[in-house]
Structure formats: C-alpha cells, structure tokens
C-alpha cells in the first residue's frame, strides 16, 4: 500500500518537472520537444491522479493527505541528488520532520 502511495507522489512530482520543462525550458529546443514534455507531464499527472483516487476510496483523507508532504521531500532530495544542491540544515530538519510526521500518522 505504501508503494502505491509513493508511486502516486512520484508521478505527481515527475509531472510537475515535465510541466516546468515544457513551460520554461530551453528556448533553443523545438516545438516538438516542448509538446513531448507537455504530453509526458499530462500522462504522469493523470496516472498519479487515478492512483490517488483509488487510494482515496480506501483510506480516510486525514490519513492519506499527510503523505503529500513526501512530495516536497522527493523534490528537494532529488534536486540534491541530480542538481548537486547543497544539503542545508533546514532541508535535513524538514525531511526529518515530514518523515516523522507521516510515520506518526501511518501508525494510527
């Protein structure tokens, strides 16, 4: 079940990144590239959305929504991994708080 939740979150983050690329990205790259990014974003978002709906059917909203906080963790962590951002103390604190919070919620 946690895999499904994580999958849904990852899909929405991926979608966001694709959208971002499509909207702002590289002026040099052609129109085809842009629409490809847009299509990939829409696809990822749609898959994430349907997974989310399936999850919503089974769980309470107050149980499920805190996992959305993992979105931020994935995004910031991913930026550190792939964009070689510095791990600041703030980031660590946030990551620990969110993980601990979701753990508390999932234990109920």
């Amino acid at each position: 079940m946690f895999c499904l939740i994580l999958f849904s979150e990852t899909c929405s983050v991926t979608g966001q990144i694709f959208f971002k690329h499509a909207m702002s990205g590289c002026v040099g790259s052609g129109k085809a590239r842009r629409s490809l990014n847009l299509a990939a974003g829409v696809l990822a978002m749609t898959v994430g959305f349907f997974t989310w709906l399936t999850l919503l059917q089974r769980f309470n909203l107050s149980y499920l929504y805190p996992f959305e906080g993992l979105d931020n963790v994935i995004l910031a962590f991913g930026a550190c991994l792939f964009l070689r951002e510095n791990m600041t103390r703030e980031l660590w604190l946030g990551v620990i708080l969110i993980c601990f919070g979701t753990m508390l919620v999932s234990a109920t």
Partner: protein
Amino acid sequence: MEPQNEQHGFRLQNESHGIRRRFLHPYLQLSISIVLTAAAQIFLKIGVDIRLGTPGYGFLVSLWIWTGISAILLSLFSWLYALKSVPLIVAFNLAATNHILVAIGACAFLGEKITQQRWLGISLVALGAFFIARSSSRAEEKL
C-alpha cells in the same frame, strides 16, 4: 448633460477596476489557490465515497469528482498568477498550511475522527514542509 454622464460612467468603470484589482491581488489569489486545493481533496473524497458501491472507475461520472477536478485546475491558475509577483519561497511557506486546512476540512465536512497522535503527525508534516520550502523553491527555480 452628456459630460456628466460620461464622468459617471468613468467613475463606475474606475470602481469596478478597483474591485478587480483587489481581487487580482497576488496574496488573495494565493490564499484562494490554497483554499481551493484543500477543498478539491474534500470534493474528491466525497465523490469516491458516494460511488463506493460501483467497482472500478464508475465514480468518474460523479459530479463531486468533476467539481474537485475543476477546483484543482482553478487553484493551479491562481497559483501561477500569484507566482508572477510572490516569491516562490513565500508561496511554498504559505502552502504548507494546506495540511492543516485539509485536516480541519476532513474533520468538519467528512466527519473523520482525528486522534491526537494524527494531529501531531499532521502538524509535524506541515512544519517540515515549512522548513523545506527554501530548498524546494530553489529546486523549482533550477529545474
């Protein structure tokens, strides 16, 4: 007679312009976006609960689901509009309140029982999202 009329018309136009400008205030749009995002989750939850009996994706036809989807789209537009003038970090910081809003909404409108432990967890997540805002806004800018 005519110039007065014209003046009146001008004033009316000016007033409506003022209301419009107030409505388009970035921070108001940001709050609208945050509230709509929370409301969308509640609409979606009501939608899937109504259709619980039908298997598969029969719930797609539910009006609640479509209300939720439009709320998401609307919130996206006001979010993008607000981001034109609000710094990303401030927007992300404020968006962290979303977790609290959804919990309150689930409690008030869906009748979900939220234990103390769950409240604590939700608050921790919101606080964490607040702390992480700086790095995720930097990540957004770079991506």
